[in-house]
């Protein structure tokens, strides 16, 4: 056990404790957290910073807004309803399109207007928000995912997670849904994570359930050496999040849309640490290196260049 501890320490693996104390608490000022915790605010700030996000169809804050729900969801190509302050993808409803007078959920089941309102009411009463405070529901564009990852995804939308330290992208991984994760790209639900080389944007090796994997468990395609399109653009989006949030340690979630290119899905002020397994390397040394760059004012473009030399 002690041997494992020493080996992990030597490899620079950081745990939740260290992430919380050294990075989340030290670099993320509490007063700015609302910028990532409230996804409506995130969207506003992102559009001001010139970062593309899925189009917002409407915001439901109360019963009066609820009357306008049919108008917000009048999109035959589907839409997404999510709690503005939810975490870990909790409470998100993904609608693929109309179905027999109701709508079809991404899981294939049917939902009617009544059921949808019930789910939204749950969101409003704070069932999914941190600390249970009253929340609002966002209705937004459903991402039509780029087929580039089709061979290594099972249903759902793959996304790209970039860890950004003081504006410098330091780690990236491609998160792929599996049958087990029910089409969601969350690693703790059984999704696959593949580390991405920052310089090239090509995937390195991958993991599922904290173990290394070579191929996607459902499609059987190799996970290594897939080129992420729009890579420089994605890195730039991630770097720009620093000016936008003023948070020193964030996880930036980006999705690739078939038509609109990379879109910022959400930001996370407490990004998970499984990304270390996906990249097969501990975070500490890279984080130390990025932290040592100091407080010099650099443009997002400069920071992207630094990022490419970090690996």
């Amino acid at each position, binding site marked *: *056990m002690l*041997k*494992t*501890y020493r*080996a*992990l*320490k030597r*490899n620079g*693996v*950081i*745990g*939740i*404790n*260290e992430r919380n*104390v*050294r990075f989340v608490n*030290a670099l993320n000022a509490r007063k700015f957290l609302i910028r990532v915790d409230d996804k409506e605010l995130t969207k506003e700030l992102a559009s001001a910073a010139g970062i593309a996000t899925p189009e917002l169809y409407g915001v439901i804050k109360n019963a009066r807004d609820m009357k306008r729900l049919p108008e917000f969801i009048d999109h035959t190509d589907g839409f997404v309803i999510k709690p503005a302050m939810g975490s*870990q*993808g*909790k*409470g998100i409803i993904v609608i693929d399109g109309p179905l027999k007078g109701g709508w079809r959920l991404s899981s294939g089941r049917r939902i009617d207007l*009544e*059921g949808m*309102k*019930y789910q939204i*009411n*749950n969101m409003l*009463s*704070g*069932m*999914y928000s941190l600390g249970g405070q009253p929340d609002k529901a966002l209705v937004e564009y459903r991402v039509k995912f780029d087929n580039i990852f089709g061979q290594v995804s099972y249903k759902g939308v793959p996304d790209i997670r970039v860890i950004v330290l003081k504006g410098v992208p330091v780690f990236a991984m491609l998160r792929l849904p599996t049958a087990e994760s029910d089409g969601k790209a969350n690693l*703790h*639900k059984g999704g696959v994570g593949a580390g991405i080389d920052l310089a090239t944007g090509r995937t390195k090796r991958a*993991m599922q359930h*904290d*173990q*290394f994997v070579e191929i996607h468990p459902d499609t059987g395609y190799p996970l290594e050496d897939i080129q992420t399109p729009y890579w420089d653009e994605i890195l730039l989006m991630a770097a720009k999040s620093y000016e936008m949030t003023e948070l020193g340690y964030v996880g930036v979630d980006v999705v690739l849309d078939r038509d609109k290119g990379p879109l910022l899905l959400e930001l996370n002020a407490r990004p998970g640490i*499984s990304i*270390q*397994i996906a990249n*097969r*390397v*501990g975070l500490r040394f890279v984080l130390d290196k990025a932290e040592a760059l100091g407080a010099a004012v650099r443009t997002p473009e400069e920071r992207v260049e630094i990022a490419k030399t970090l690996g």
Partner: protein
Amino acid sequence: MKINFRHATILGIVLIVAGAVIFLVKSAALHYPLTPGARATLWDFEIYLEFVGRNQPARIETYIPAGDVERTFPQEEFYNGSFGLSLIGETGSRNRKAVWTYRYPANKKVLRYAAQTLGETLSTPLPLAFRESEPQVIPFQADEVKRQAFIVWSGNLRQRSADDRSFADLALKSVFETRADNEQFADEVAALLEEGEGVVGRLLLAQQLLQSQGVPARIAGGVYLSDERRREETRRWLEYHIDGDDFRFFPGGAPDRFFTIWYGPRPLVTADGVDDLDVQIALRSRETSAAAVAENAPGPLGDFGRAMGFSGLPLTTQLVYQVLITIPVGIAILVFLRQFIGFKTLGTFMPVLIGIAFRETALINGILLFSLLIALGLTLRFYLERLHLLLVPRLAVVLIFIVMAMAGITILMTGANQAIGLSISLFPMVILTMTIERMSIVWEESSAGEAIKQGVGSLAVAAITYLAMTNSHVEYLMYQFPELLLVLMGLCVLMGRYTGLRLSELWRFRALAN
């Protein structure tokens, strides 16, 4: 960040040290026992005087133990009969006297003094008044012949000794040696000792020898506390003080425990105007709670001990704190399990609250009841899901259902003559309701397996904290030494700066270990 780190470490260590120091003072200096139910031997001490009056004014004086900062005798009792009693403090010594008087006593009379004591040991310091007295040279006073003998003898002892200590050793040896072994000065000692003076005479001589060298010394009288006895004899020994160190010399070997009653060469009891005086000193040992003895310790140190404890509070309040004070132990364990082991629980402090509830039900019943209620509540929760209720009303329905289920279980169990039914009433229903809600969300959002895993994890933590909080040793230590809260707080501060890996993360990241 570095400064924060050092600051927290210092704070944590300061808290732990502060708590530990108070703890040590109480356990080492005040002898608060470290285990529950520790016993101390308390001695009942009694002077019993029996005599026949002569029908003329009678005066009976007896020395009784004097209290001071380090000793008190709150349980003192006098039996006076028809005699008048006055208590006199002797000036110049620490002695206290009980003086019984009566104008015309006739027939057989009885007087009695009783007290309780823990006694003293060789390591008990000499009374403060004695230790603080200035050392002074008191020359030997007697007729010329004796004075000459004393000077020759003491001069020789002085020559053969290096310092006051060795002088005292030699002097005591010389005084108490029998004639045959003491060739050289046998005559001098014999001349100085008057016939029939026995131990007191020899002790007096030793005292004079020491005083002539400027060593404060005096004769003490008392009893040895070794056996229960109705007729214990009084003993005499010598107390002296050299360079800040206390010494006691017991002729014939030191006892384990003794009780000092008076000082000086005079006998314990003196009586005028009575016949057939019979002095009986009785000793009886009694086992008593060591904690109670410590709590009654006299002096400012004793006050400090009392201020750092709950013994001064009303009993009902004490009982409340007896439970409350163990909760931080559970919390600290929870912090450890979360930060170092990596347990996942439903809600931060929920397992500790469940652990507290187990107090009423005991462990096995508690776990069974808890699981049963959670299972029933979850079933209802899944049914309610279909009714599409709003969050707060739905929580209220679950809560009411929980109360109903608890009442139902109580009624059923009482019908079946099972006592556990009654204990359920204190189960924290709000906590149960929130647990059910959280579990059902995890169930839907992740999986049934994850929900059950977290539920079982919470139960395991609850069981661990329950076992710790109800451990009689922990309960006792926390209650008797509330300053340990500072230690727990300091530990939590230090744990709050632990940035290493958790045990569960060793497993999680095992793939990266090579």
